[in-house]
């Protein structure tokens, strides 16, 4: 046995020593879903750069990244390190609900705010009638988008039958599907086929053939663009012409490349924002992002990472301190903060109340359809 403790470290919760405020980022930088974590990190870094031009309360934000290797135990090690070793003021992360949930206990017991940009599972912030008061998120929770999609399918597209194709390794996908299904069937629609895949799959022909056989009028695919792009492409190749719909997970310029412009026609998504949105806030973000990352268009992960950074910066500003507990209070009181993905207000379960938009893909462009308020 060795591992001698090198730094004893004081007990004081001073994350703002030396004119810096340390913010941890516990993200999936390697492993299975490395691309999510890396996108979020890019968004955060861009935001920090901007924020640090002025500073927060006269201090600069310093990002302390941690790679949780897309693995829950690693995420815990990371959270432990960030709280006890680096003594950060808050943690941003993780990208997935599972790796976020793994950190909850540590955030709670160390009283350090944990903000997940993209962990959409309902029970991240609120579980068994109990609020995890140190846990926050920047994204919607699943039921909202699922409901919006069901309403849209029934009322706008006027379809009666639908198939659902979910990523069963993702709470996000399952959550959306569940709420979609509930509303869709309640209001008279019929689910004719449910199929599933697992993230990182590349071949969906078998399931799509089954879906085709069930002849649905509408296909709901609440997944992430990496798979959805291929699904849409393969579905069209197999001759599925029905409208398809998904959610914010689709939002990435890569989707268009993966699926192909033609295949994407007659597909819809619900989203936080539209990168084609004329809103100056959005346009500025897109411009800044492209400038920093060699002309790459931002995806939803980039945007949510970016927003998460602003979300925290705002709270620190209002708290007037880098004390994690004060930041936690400020985060909880956020109301009307203007972000790229919409105006931010938290409900009492720490879920953002944001409006959603519905977009349609037309020849590879996102066309704004409607805005839905919660």
């Amino acid at each position, binding site marked *: 046995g*060795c591992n001698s403790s090198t730094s004893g470290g004081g007990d004081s919760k001073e994350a703002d020593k030396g004119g810096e405020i340390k913010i941890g980022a516990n993200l999936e*930088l390697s492993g299975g879903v490395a691309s999510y974590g890396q996108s979020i990190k890019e968004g955060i870094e861009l935001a920090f750069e901007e924020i640090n031009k002025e500073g927060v309360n006269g201090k600069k934000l310093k990002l302390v990244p*941690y790679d949780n290797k897309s693995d*829950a135990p690693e995420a815990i090690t990371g959270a432990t390190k960030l709280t006890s070793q680096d003594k950060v003021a808050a943690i941003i992360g993780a990208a997935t609900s599972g790796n976020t949930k793994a950190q909850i206990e540590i955030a709670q017991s160390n009283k350090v705010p944990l903000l997940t940009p993209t962990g959409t599972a309902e029970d991240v912030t609120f579980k068994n009638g109990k609020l995890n008061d140190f846990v926050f998120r920047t994204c919607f929770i699943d039921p909202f988008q699922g409901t919006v999609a069901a309403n849209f399918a029934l009322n706008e597209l006027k379809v009666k039958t639908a198939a659902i194709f979910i990523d069963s390794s993702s709470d996000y996908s399952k959550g959306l599907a569940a709420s979609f299904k509930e509303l869709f069937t309640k209001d008279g629609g019929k689910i004719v086929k449910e199929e599933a895949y697992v993230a990182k799959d590349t071949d969906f022909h078998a399931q799509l053939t089954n879906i085709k056989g069930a002849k649905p009028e509408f296909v709901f695919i609440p997944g992430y663009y990496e798979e959805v792009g291929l699904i849409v492409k393969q579905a069209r190749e197999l001759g599925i012409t029905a409208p398809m719909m998904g959610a914010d997970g689709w939002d990435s310029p890569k989707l268009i490349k993966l699926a192909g412009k033609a295949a994407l026609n007659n597909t819809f998504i619900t989203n936080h924002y539209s990168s084609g949105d004329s809103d100056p806030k959005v346009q500025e973000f897109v411009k800044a992002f492209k400038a920093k990352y060699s002309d790459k268009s931002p995806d939803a992960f980039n945007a949510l990472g970016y927003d998460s950074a602003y979300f925290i910066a705002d709270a620190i500003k209002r708290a007037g301190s880098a004390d994690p507990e004060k930041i936690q209070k400020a985060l909880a009181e956020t109301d009307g903060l203007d972000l790229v993905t919409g105006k931010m207000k938290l409900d009492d379960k720490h879920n953002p109340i944001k409006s959603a938009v519905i977009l349609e893909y037309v020849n590879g462009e996102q066309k704004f359809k409607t805005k839905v308020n919660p």
Partner: protein
Amino acid sequence: MKSMKHVKGFWLSIVLAIIFSVVIQFLITGGTLNSFYVNTLFSIGINIILAVSLHLIIGITGQFSIGHAGFLAVGAYASAIITMKLALPFPLALLVGGIAAAFAGLVIGIPTLRLRGDYLAIATLGFGEIMKIVFLNIDYVGGASGMTVSHLTTWPWLMACVLITIVVIINFTNSTHGRACLSIRENEIAADAMGINTTYYKVMAFVIGAFFAGVAGALHAHNFYIIQPANFGFLKSFDILILVVLGGLGSMSGSVIAAILLTIISTFLSNYPEVRMLIYSLVLIVMMLFRPQGLMGTKEFTDLLKIGKGAKGGSQDVNKQTIA
């Protein structure tokens, strides 16, 4: 008389280990060790159990099994069900975790252990993946999103499990039963011809190894708050395999040292997330290139201590390196 010396060194190590654990316990309760270090210590402990249990299968019995994460998963889930679903006490969960994994070892071992070399490897790897997929598909244990588990793993339990694992495996190895396993590793046909029931001992090593991997699973589940099938894929099995090989195939102290060292390296590298895996992979490659026989070769820690006392021949020529 050689074994007598072993016995003395053995008890000495046990006493030292107990003193060490008590000291650490004081440091933890006194708050001198912050939770990051404590967490690292816990990871080390769990990795030691995993490495030592796989050492029995690969290093001693010579069965190339690369699905160890499967047993880890079985132990983790079984124990989590005990505490979280059935609300039974943690010690029972440890035991059940071990037994469930041992049972899995038996079930998979009997048919597959007649395979050899790489075929066995791929079959065990397949087994590990099957376990993962089974848990992925059982909604009772949360499917892909997994199960949240209370933090019940404590330092004394961890240390006790580590010590028991080491003691049992040393005692097993240094007996006629362990030698039977060694003989299988050395030459299975000759072992058979000497009357060793090779199937029995292969399965036995597999079951014992799986049992402790299961115990490690229980400790793992109750240390990391959440278990998900994705934590137990073949890459996790590789991680364990790497510990055993890097330590030196056939050397238990090697496995232990590798578990300690690699966990620390990996923790240290977390300060450099962008290059973490890059450096880790380089460490692996470089270590293998410069010490293909692993850190300890086939020697044990106790052998090193004995060098001064003029060890009786034999073990000197372990670093057999054929000319290039």
